[in-house]
C-alpha cells in the first residue's frame, strides 16, 4: 500500500501551502512586501508495466503502460513582484517606487541589500537611512539647516535651506534592477539579497528606460490580496482533509486485510 505515503506527501504539501498563506496574511500591512506562492509538482513515477513494451511475439506493443505516481512535492515558493498600491502618508521621506526597481541599501556588514520599502528616516548626521539605520545608496546627506526636502520622480533630492531662494540639489537616489527580480533572496527586515538566479544588479536613476519613477509622500503597500489568500486558505484546508481521508481509507483497508480468518 503506497497510498499512506502518497497521502502523507499531499498533507505535507498542503502544510507548506498554509504556511505560505499564513506568512502572506501576517505581512498584509508590511510596506513593500511581495506575496509568495508555492508551486507544486508531481513526484517520480514507478513503471509497473512500461508503455511501448512488446505485449506479444507478434510485436504488438502496450498502448498505455502502468505508471503509478508516488505523490507531490513543493517545487518552489516564489515571490510575485506585482506592484502594490500606493498610499499617501504626507511624510517627506516616504518614497514609493512606481514601476520596476529596488532601492540599494548598505548593510552594516558592508554588503548591499535591496528593498522596495521606502519609508526612510534621517540619521543623526542628516543622512537618508532605512528604519533600521542602514544608509540608502548613494548616501545623501540633508543639510541640518534645511526646512524642507523635495524628491522628484527622477530621484533628485533638493533641500530648501532657510533664507535661500532656490532649493539646493543634494544628490540623486539610485535604483537597481535585476534580470529576474523574483530570484532575489528575502532575508527579512524588508531586505532582499542578490543571488545567482537573480543576475547582477543594474544601477540607474529612476525614470531611465526600464526603471520606475519615485513618488514622494507615498509608501507602497504589500500586494497581498486578502480575498485571494482566504479562498486559497479554504482550498488548502479542504485538500488537507481529503488527503487525511485517504490515509483513513488506506488504514481501514489494511485493517480489513489483517482480519482475514
Amino acid at each position, binding site marked *: 500500500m503506497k497510498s499512506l505515503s502518497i497521502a502523507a506527501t499531499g498533507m505535507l504539501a498542503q502544510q507548506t501551502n498554509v504556511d505560505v498563506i499564513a506568512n502572506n496574511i501576517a505581512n498584509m500591512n508590511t510596506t513593500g512586501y511581495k506575496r509568495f506562492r508555492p508551486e507544486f509538482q508531481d513526484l517520480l513515477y514507478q513503471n509497473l508495466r512500461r508503455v511501448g513494451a512488446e505485449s506479444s511475439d507478434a510485436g504488438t506493443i502496450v498502448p498505455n503502460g502502468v505508471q503509478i505516481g508516488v*505523490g507531490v512535492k513543493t517545487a518552489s515558493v516564489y515571490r510575485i513582484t506585482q506592484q502594490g498600491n500606493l498610499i499617501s502618508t504626507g511624510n517627506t521621506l516616504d518614497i514609493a517606487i512606481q514601476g520596476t526597481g529596488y532601492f540599494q541599501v548598505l548593510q552594516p556588514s558592508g554588503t548591499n541589500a535591496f528593498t522596495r520599502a521606502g519609508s526612510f528616516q534621517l540619521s543623526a548626521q542628516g543622512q537618508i537611512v532605512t528604519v533600521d539605520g542602514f544608509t540608502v545608496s548613494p548616501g545623501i546627506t540633508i543639510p541640518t539647516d534645511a526646512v524642507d526636502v523635495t524628491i522628484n520622480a527622477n530621484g533628485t533630492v533638493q533641500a530648501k535651506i532657510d533664507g535661500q531662494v532656490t532649493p539646493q540639489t543634494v544628490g540623486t537616489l539610485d535604483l537597481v534592477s535585476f534580470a529576474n527580480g523574483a530570484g532575489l533572496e528575502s532575508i527579512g527586515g524588508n531586505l532582499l539579497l542578490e543571488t545567482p538566479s537573480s543576475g547582477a544588479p543594474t544601477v540607474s536613476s529612476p525614470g531611465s528606460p526600464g526603471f520606475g519613477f519615485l513618488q514622494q509622500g507615498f509608501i507602497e503597500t504589500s500586494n497581498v490580496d486578502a480575498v485571494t489568500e482566504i479562498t486559497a486558505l479554504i482550498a488548502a484546508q479542504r485538500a488537507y482533509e481529503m488527503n487525511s481521508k485517504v490515509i483513513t481509507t488506506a488504514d481501514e483497508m489494511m485493517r480489513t*486485510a489483517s482480519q482475514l480468518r
Partner: protein
Amino acid sequence: MENTVLAMISRQMGIEREMDAIANNIANASTDGFKSERMLFAEYLQDIGNNQTIAFIKVAGVIRDFTDGPIRTTGNPLDIAIRGEGFLKIETDDGILYTRSGRLHLDATGMLVNADGQAVLGDSDLPILTFPGDIAITIDPDGRVTSESGELGRLALVVFEDVSKLVKLGNGLYDSKADPIDPEEPGDVTVIQAALEGSNVEPITEMTKMISLLRSYQGTQTMGNEEHDLRRKAIGILGGVSQSA
C-alpha cells in the same frame, strides 16, 4: 478449491493499485497542469480443467484524463495556461521533454525558464531571451512573446497523435518516443496569459471512488471469510467419521 481465494486476492491487489492512483490524484489536487489518472483492468482467464475457466483480474494500463483543468487568473504576466491538448517544449539534460505546467520564470540571463530553471523552447528549438529592462512582457494566444524590445520569439506549442503514449517523469514533465506534431489548425491550441491551468482532479469523484473501493475491498474480504467457513464446515462434517469411531 483455492481458486476462490486466489481470485479474491487478485481483486484485492487490483483495488490496492487503484487506491494508490487515487491517493496520487488527491495528493496532486493542487499541482498546476496535473492530469488525473485511473487504472484499467483486464480479465486474465485460466483453464482449470473440466472445461472450466477462472477469471483473474490484472492491471492492464493507466488511463490519463487529458481534459483541460480549471483556468484561474493569477495576474502574473509570466503565467500561461494552455487550452487544448498542447504541450510546451522544455530543454533538459535528457533531451527535449514536454510539459503542461505554464508557470514560467526568467533566469539571471533573462531567459524564459520553468520552475526548475530549464529553458522553455520557442520555434526551431531555440530558447526565448528577454533584454535587460524589459518589463511589460506579453504573450498572445498564438504564443508569441513580445516586450518593449519587440518580438522575442514564439513559444513552441506541440500536440501528439496519441497522448496516452506519453511517459510521465514527474515534475510535470512528459517524455515521448514519438515526435510531436504541429497543431493542425492554428486555433486548436491557444495560450492565455496571466492565468494558470489547475489540476483536473475532481475531488468529489475521487472521494466517492475511494469509498466504493473500500467497500468492495471489504466485500471481497467477506467472500474470503465465507469460503473459510465453508471449508471448516466441510472438514467438520467429513472428518466426523473419525470422531464417532
